């Protein structure tokens, strides 16, 4: 009886169709009907035309082939990238861009981690900012203007709100501007949490002047700090402050205490308010509190101070 189906192609095809549909309905179609597949964070805002243009470029260049946009709820991952991704952050994402391969770092919490100037320089020449990186140079983004008319059509297709003035402004922007605007948006619907250990601003560096710590600090500096502040600690004008020049680094403040240094390295830009520095408005210092041990941070402070002492001579 059951064997008859192998002699009846129509019945067989129908049977196969029903079998294929069973799992598809339970796992693909049914979840769509549930609200937990369509959550939206209250803090999440729709894309602006510039941000959407940036996202379109992120798609065009296939960034998703090397960068993920989802932080898994694993201890190491939250420490490295920031808070784990929430379902409600992706309400406007068509398609999702979580990716499947992390050749480069995750970008889900990229927004506000680094200043625009870092991104501009990095897209132009990644190896200059991150030696031994394997990322391609995206030199063509700087020379092309955003296609304002196409972006307007895209905003309309997605039923996203926009003003005519926003589209008019787009014409002045390069593709690189749009890409960086998108970078700075990523993950910002979830407020950043303070990274690393609590900091006592009055703390004194227990490793100050320790030669072994200074040597260790050089290694930490080369691995984590030189990317922006450069190998010679002299920074990059207008983007990354020199750690040697007092007028640039300290601005109106006299030398900071060890505790303030520690707070800035551990907490990044978010610590600036606590120590009374204005910082750059478009983001800035990355928080290293989860990536560097206390000793590493004290070591790098010892190293910076020793370099500054040499520089003054």
């Amino acid at each position: 009886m059951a064997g008859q189906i192998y002699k009846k192609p129509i019945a067989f095809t129908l049977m196969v169709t029903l079998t294929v549909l069973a799992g598809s309905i339970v796992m693909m179609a049914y979840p769509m009907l549930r609200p937990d597949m369509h959550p939206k964070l209250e803090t999440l805002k729709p894309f602006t035309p510039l941000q959407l243009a940036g996202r379109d470029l992120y798609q065009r260049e296939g960034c998703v082939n090397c960068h993920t946009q989802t932080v898994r709820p694993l201890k190491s991952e939250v420490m490295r990238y920031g808070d784990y991704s929430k379902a409600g952050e992706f309400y406007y994402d068509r398609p999702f861009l979580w990716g499947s391969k992390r050749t480069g770092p995750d970008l889900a919490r990229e927004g506000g981690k680094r200043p625009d100037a870092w991104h501009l320089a990095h897209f132009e020449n990644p190896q200059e900012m991150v030696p031994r990186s394997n990322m391609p140079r995206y030199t063509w983004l700087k020379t092309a203007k955003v296609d304002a008319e196409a972006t307007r059509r895209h905003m309309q297709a997605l039923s996203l709100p926009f003003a005519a003035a926003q589209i008019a402004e787009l014409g002045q922007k390069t593709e690189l501007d749009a890409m960086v605007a998108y970078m700075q948006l990523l993950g910002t619907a979830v407020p950043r949490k303070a990274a690393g250990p609590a900091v006592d601003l009055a703390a004194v560096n227990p490793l100050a002047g320790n030669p072994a710590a200074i040597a260790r600090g050089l290694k930490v500096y080369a691995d984590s700090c030189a990317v922006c502040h450069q190998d010679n600690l002299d920074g990059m004008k207008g983007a990354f402050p020199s750690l040697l020049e007092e007028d640039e680094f300290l601005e109106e403040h006299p030398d900071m205490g060890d505790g303030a240094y520690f707070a800035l390295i551990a907490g990044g830009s978010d610590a600036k308010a606590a120590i009374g520095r204005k910082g750059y408005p478009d983001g800035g210092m990355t928080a290293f509190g989860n990536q560097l041990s206390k000793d590493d941070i004290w070591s790098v402070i010892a190293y910076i101070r020793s370099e500054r002492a040499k520089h003054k001579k």
Partner: protein
Amino acid sequence: MNEEYRYDYKTVEGYILSAIVWAVVGLVVGLLISIQMFAPAFNFNAWTSFGRMRPVHTNILGFGLGVGAIFGISYFIVMRLTKRPLVFPKLARLQLWLFNLGIFLALVTLAMGYTQSLEYAEMEWPLDIAIVILWVMFAVNVIGTILVRREEGMYISLWYIISTVVGVAVLYIVNNLSIPAGLLKSYHLFAGVNSANVEWWYGHNVVGFVFTMPILAMFYYFLPKSTGLPIWSHRLSIVAFWSLVFGYLWTGAHHLVYTPLPDWVQTVAIVFTLFLIAPSWGSVVNGYYTIGEDWTKMRTSYLSKFFILGITFYGLQTVQGPTQALRVVSQLIHFTDWVPGHVHMGTMGWVALTVTASIYYVVAKIYGTEIYSEKLANAHFWLVLVGQLVFSITMWITGIQQGAMWKATTAEGTLKYTFMEGLVKNYPYWHLRALGGAIFIVGMLLFVANVLMTIKKGRALEAGPKVAAPAVA
């Protein structure tokens, strides 16, 4: 000799030749992107940058080589098993031209950056429509020919071909539903978490219904044909078939473990993924017991080793896959180079060995002759085997290393390594992987040469005196 058959075999040959051309293109692009992984200077310009070339590689090999070969070989199998020529031979010929045009346009538009950013569904909406039309043409000919068959019972291979026709249609149409926003721009109809779930329901199953079902159809047809041994258990093949077709569709969300997708969807997918070992191994066991009836065939019939090694890699693949779906394993290897290692064992091991062996068989059969050179075929076999093993094994090692370095913490609880410290450790393995890929390509070029020489030999035979006319039935 039946003239209608000859005509349709020419169509089959057309698909095989097309698939071979796309294979060479896709493999060269694969080698390029494997070099770009450690030498960014090989990103020559926008068109050849990694982000655009990687989808070109996967689409040209998946759809150009894979689907091209599936079209051609499925038509061959359908005709043999129904003892009929195709019901719509001209439609199959038209489909062949449309197919090549489509793959060419995919190559160009993907290099230009027109993409839906959905893995294995990157092509923009006008090409999606073309693919659906192609698929309907294929379905009409397959189902139509089976309906007018001269053999009452449908052999196992026909079950797998029918399930391919149905499965790909359902998957492709749903996942490519999108909001058009221009001639070559669209946005997924589904958003956020839902977009992810639909995409991986598709993404995983397109592997199932393009790289598993039709390849099993070839395996079940050509293994007995090339060895003269009947399939060991018909009953086992029935159980394996239905449980595979049933189980596959539940498993896609194992690609989304630890993402914001609701936990229950992830868990159900993981459970069904474990279940999938059973039907996969049903075919593995059937293959092994079939050759087990006479192991000397591994020596005497040069194609046997392609099929048996192929099904061996299928067996390893279908144990490795479910293992990866487990949360504890996923958290270590997901997003690392382990995953390309896994995928390439399936494509370079299982799929490539089975498809190339099937093509050897079909091309020789079309002209009623023997393969141009068994020696060359044996060299091809060993080169692709070594190339694939070098590729996969290096990727597994570096993948585990990467995952471990990402997770490592100090006694104080801070991260032990920066991202770059982990990345630079990949470089030696990425060099070896490119080497493995290059060895594989040399093997595949021997295959291409062998096929072309066989066709040349066959055509000379046909043009020769009538006595040499091949007996085809």
